[in-house]
C-alpha cells in the first residue's frame, strides 16, 4: 500500500518537521497550517529546497542544496546519525532488513563531502540529522522536488531510510509523508490507475490478487503490466501506440519536452479526449467528450494525502451537452458491446469495496457522515487507520521487515555546460495550479503571469532589470519571458512555472528524462542559457 503514513493532526504534535523538496506554504497551504501549529508550539522546521521559498521563511534551518543532490544529502544525514550514535538500534534490529549494507554504503558520505556536493553548510546538515534523530515525534514530508527527477524512486527511498534509521515511522506522531499535488492523485493510484496495479493498489501480476477481478468481471485479464504515461509516449515514438484516450489530463501542456509531446499526439491515428475544459490537448483530438466537473457537478469520492476517502457531491448541474464521466464511459462501453447498464457512483463504489480489501469497510453511509474514512478500513466496524505500519512495532514484526535501500546519487540528465550553464527548475505558485485551465479564470490579485525568476547576482551579471523580456533556451526549445528578480534564488538557478502555457510554453524547455520505475519526468532540472533581448531592453530603458 502506498500512501502517507501519518494523519495531518499528527503533524501538529511533531517536535521536528522536515519538508524536503516541498514548498507547502504555497502548494499545500492548508497542510502548512498544521505545520505552523507545530512551529508555533516550538517544533524545529527544516526546509530542504534549492529555492529559499515562503516555506523556508518559516524554517529554523533552510538547506538550499543544489538541484539533484538529494540522495547525497540524505545519505550524509544518515551517516551523521550513525556517527553520533543516534540511530534507533532496537527498531533497526527488530523491524528492518539490509542495515549492515546500508551502513557501509553511507559511511563515505561525511558532512564535508555532502557540503561540497550539495553546497550546504556542514553544520546545517548536522543540525538536521541530530534534531530529526532525537525528536520524540518527527515528520518527514516531501513533494515534487523529490519526485520530479529521473531518479525519483531512489530519492524517495533515501528519505525512507532516514525514517527507518530513527524509528520515525509506524507510530503515532512520526511518519513519512508524500504530499499529493492533485486532489485525487492518491485515489487514482489506489483505484488502479497505475500500469501495474488493480483497484486497491493490488498488484496486477499476482495471480491470487487478479483472480477475484477475473471472476467478478467474467474475463481473463492480461497478466502483464501496461505503460506509464512516459512509456506511452515512447510507445508512440516506436509506433506501437496509435490510439489514445485521455481523461482529465492535458499532456500537450503538462508533459515535458512539449515539441516532442505535440508531435507524437498529432501523429496518433485516433486521439479521444474527455475533459471539463477544451484544453490544448482536446484541440488536437479527433473526438472530444465534454465532461462534468468531477468535484462539483458529479457524485463520487476522492482520496487525500492522509489516505482519507472523501465524498464529492454534485452542487450544480453541468452545462447543456456536458455529461458525467460515468455516463460517458458506460455509454461508450455499450457502443463497444459491453452493456454495464447505467451505474451510479455508489454502485461503482460498492464494486470497489467488493474487490479491494482496504476499502471494504467504507460504505457510502459511513462516508456520508463525519469526515470520510482513512484506508485501510477492512470492515464496517473498522475505524480506518490514522497511521500506517504499526505492525513494524509489533514484536515479532507482523509481515515482512522494512528494507533499507542502498541509494547512489545520479546527477540530472540535462547536464550543465558552457552552452547551457544555468539550472532551470519548475514549480507552482500559491494562486495557480498546473497548466492553469482551472486556476487561470478567477480574478486573482496575485496572478502575475509567467516570469523567469532569477537571482540578483545573475540579473546583475546578465545586465537584466525587473520586467525585462529575456530569452531562455534549452537543448529542446526556446521561450521568452519577463525577468523577475528573486532573492530566494542563488546564482546559477532560475525558476519558472507551467501555469501560463498559452503565453510561455515552459515545457518546451523541460526534458523528458524519466525515472524508469515511476515514469516521472525530470521537470525539476533543465539546463538552459539566458540571452538578453537587446531591442526589447532598449525599449524598456527610462526615457
Amino acid at each position: 500500500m502506498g500512501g502517507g503514513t501519518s494523519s495531518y493532526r499528527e503533524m501538529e504534535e511533531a517536535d521536528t518537521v522536515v519538508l524536503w523538496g516541498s514548498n507547502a506554504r504555497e502548494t499545500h497551504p492548508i497542510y502548512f497550517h498544521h505545520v505552523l501549529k507545530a512551529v508555533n508550539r516550538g517544533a524545529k522546521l527544516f526546509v530542504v529546497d534549492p529555492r529559499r521559498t515562503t516555506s523556508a521563511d518559516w524554517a529554523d534551518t533552510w538547506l538550499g542544496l543544489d538541484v539533484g543532490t538529494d540522495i547525497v544529502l540524505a545519505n550524509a544525514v544518515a551517516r551523521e546519525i550513525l556517527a553520533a550514535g543516534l540511530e534507533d538500534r532496537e527498531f533497526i534490529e527488530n523491524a528492518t532488513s539490509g542495515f549492515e549494507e546500508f551502513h557501509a554504503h553511507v559511511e563515505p558520505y561525511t558532512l564535508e563531502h555532502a557540503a561540497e556536493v550539495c553546497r550546504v553548510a556542514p553544520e546545517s546538515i548536522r543540525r538536521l540529522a541530530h534534531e530529526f534523530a532525537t525528536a520524540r515525534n518527527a515528520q518527514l514530508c516531501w513533494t515534487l522536488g523529490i519526485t520530479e527527477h529521473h531518479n525519483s524512486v531512489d530519492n524517495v527511498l533515501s528519505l525512507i531510510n532516514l525514517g527507518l534509521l530513527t524509528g520515525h515511522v509506524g507510530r503515532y506522531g512520526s511518519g513519512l509523508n508524500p504530499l499529493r499535488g492533485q486532489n485525487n492523485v492518491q485515489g487514482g493510484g489506489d483505484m488502479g490507475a497505475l500500469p501495474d496495479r488493480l483497484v486497491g493498489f493490488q498488484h496486477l501480476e499476482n495471480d491470487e490478487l487478479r483472480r477475484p477481478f477475473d471472476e467478478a468481471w467474467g474475463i481473463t485479464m492480461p497478466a502483464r503490466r501496461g505503460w506509464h504515461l512516459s512509456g506511452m509516449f515512447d510507445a508512440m515514438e516506436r509506433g506501437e501506440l496509435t490510439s489514445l484516450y485521455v481523461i482529465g489530463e492535458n499532456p500537450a501542456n503538462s508533459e515535458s519536452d512539449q515539441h516532442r509531446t505535440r508531435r507524437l499526439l498529432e501523429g496518433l491515428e485516433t486521439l479521444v479526449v474527455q475533459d471539463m475544459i477544451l484544453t490544448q490537448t482536446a484541440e488536437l483530438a479527433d473526438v472530444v467528450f465534454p465532461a462534468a466537473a468531477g468535484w462539483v457537478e458529479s457524485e463520487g469520492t476522492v482520496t487525500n494525502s492522509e489516505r482519507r476517502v472523501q465524498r464529492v457531491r454534485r452542487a450544480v448541474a453541468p452545462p447543456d451537452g456536458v455529461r458525467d464521466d460515468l455516463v460517458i464511459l458506460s455509454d461508450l462501453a455499450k457502443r463497444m458491446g459491453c452493456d454495464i447498464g447505467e451505474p451510479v457512483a455508489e454502485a461503482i463504489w460498492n464494486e470497489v469495496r467488493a474487490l479491494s480489501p482496504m476499502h471494504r469497510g467504507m460504505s457510502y453511509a459511513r462516508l456520508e457522515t463525519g469526515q470520510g474514512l482513512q484506508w485501510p478500513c477492512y470492515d464496517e466496524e473498522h475505524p480506518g487507520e490514522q497511521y500506517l505500519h504499526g505492525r513494524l512495532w509489533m514484536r515479532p514484526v507482523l509481515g515482512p521487515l522494512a528494507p533499507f535501500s542502498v541509494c547512489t546519487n545520479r546527477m540530472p540528465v540535462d547536464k550543465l555546460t558552457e552552452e547551457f550553464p544555468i539550472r532551470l527548475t519548475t514549480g507552482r505558485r500559491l494562486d495557480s495550479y498546473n497548466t492553469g485551465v482551472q486556476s487561470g479564470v478567477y480574478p486573482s490579485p496575485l496572478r502575475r503571469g509567467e516570469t523567469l525568476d532569477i537571482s540578483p547576482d545573475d540579473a546583475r551579471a546578465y545586465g537584466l532589470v525587473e520586467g525585462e523580456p529575456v530569452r531562455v533556451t534549452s537543448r529542446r526549445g526556446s521561450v521568452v519571458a519577463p525577468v523577475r528578480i528573486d532573492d530566494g534564488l542563488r546564482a546559477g538557478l532560475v525558476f519558472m512555472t507551467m501555469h501560463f502555457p498559452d503565453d510561455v510554453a515552459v515545457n518546451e524547455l523541460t526534458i523528458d528524462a524519466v525515472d524508469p520505475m515511476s515514469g516521472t519526468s525530470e521537470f525539476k532540472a533543465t539546463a538552459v542559457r539566458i540571452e538578453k533581448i537587446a531591442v526589447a531592453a532598449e525599449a524598456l530603458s527610462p526615457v
Partner: protein
Amino acid sequence: MSDNLKAPDPLVPVPQGPVPVLPTGSRKSVEITIDGATVAVPEGATLLEAGRMQGIDTPTLCFLENLTPVNVCRICVVELEGSRTLVPACSRKVEAGMVIHTDSERVRHSRRLVLELLASSVDVSTAPQFQDYMSRYEAEPSRFGPPGPPAAAGERDSARPGHHHAPDGSTASRVAQPVKIDNELYVRDYSKCILCYKCVEACGVDAQNTFAIAVAGRGFGARIATEYDVTLPDSACVYCGNCIGVCPTGALMFKSEHDMRAAGTWDESAQSQTDTICPYCGVGCTLTVHAQHDLIVKVTSPLDQDVANGHLCIKGRFGWEWVNQDKDRD
C-alpha cells in the same frame, strides 16, 4: 533465513495489522452548578462548553470553535457566584464547585447593553445571528439617539490615538464609511465591523499566519487595518479569505456576494449548500459550495473538519469561477 528477513515483494500484499492505538487523554470531570442543575463536566472545559452540554444557548460574537478566545465582545458573559464581575463563558474554564447563572437579569442586562452599543454604531443588516440576539435580549439601540453622520473615505483610517473630538451626545456615533473595494475577490465594509478580532486571529496565529491585518487606533477610533492602511493588493494579504470565513457580520464579503446584493439578485432562499472536496491540491479540504440557480456564488468551509478546520487557501475559496463559465446567467 526466515521468510520475513527478505525484502517485501511488491507482488505480495502487506498483511492486515491491528488497528493502530491512538493516544487518549482521559479527562477527569468536575461538578459545577449551572442554572440550578448540578452537572459533571470534563476538566478543562469552558463555561460555554459546559452550558452547551446542558443545551444552554449562550450567545457569542467574537468566539469561534477554530479560534483562540480573545474575550473582546463580552456578549457571552455569565454570572459566577463569588465573582465581582461577570465572566466570559467562552474562555473561563470550569472549576469544581462553581455556581453559574447564564440567564440572570444581570447577565441579560449586560448582554442587552453590549448589543445596543454595537448596533447603535454598526450596520448589522447582514448579521442575522446578531439580529436574533437583539430580539432575544430586547435591545433598543435607538435609545442612544438618531444615527450620526458617516465618515468620509479614509477619515477613520487617518484618526490617530488621542486625537478626537468629544461627541455632543445628540446623535449616536457611528463607524459608517464607504466600502473598501480594492480587488476582485472580496470587499471590506467596515461600517459593519464590530471589532470582534476574528479576522485578525484567522489572518494571524490561529490559522493563516500571514499577519496582513491588525487592530489600529484606540477607543472609538479603533479599527481593523492593513499596515499603514495600504490597499489589500499592496499589503501582505494572500487572499485566503479566512477572514471572510470567520466574520460574523458580513463586513468582509465575497465580491461576488457584494455585487449580487447591490444588484438585488442575492437570494439566500434560492441557494443550496453542498459539501464537496476542493479540486486543487491533494490536501482534501471540504468546500461548502453555495449555489443559486445552478451557479456557484460563494464557497465556505465547515468548522468541524480536521483537515482544514474551516480554513481554505485562495484557490479553494475563490478558484471556482471557471465552473460558471459557459452557463447562461439568467
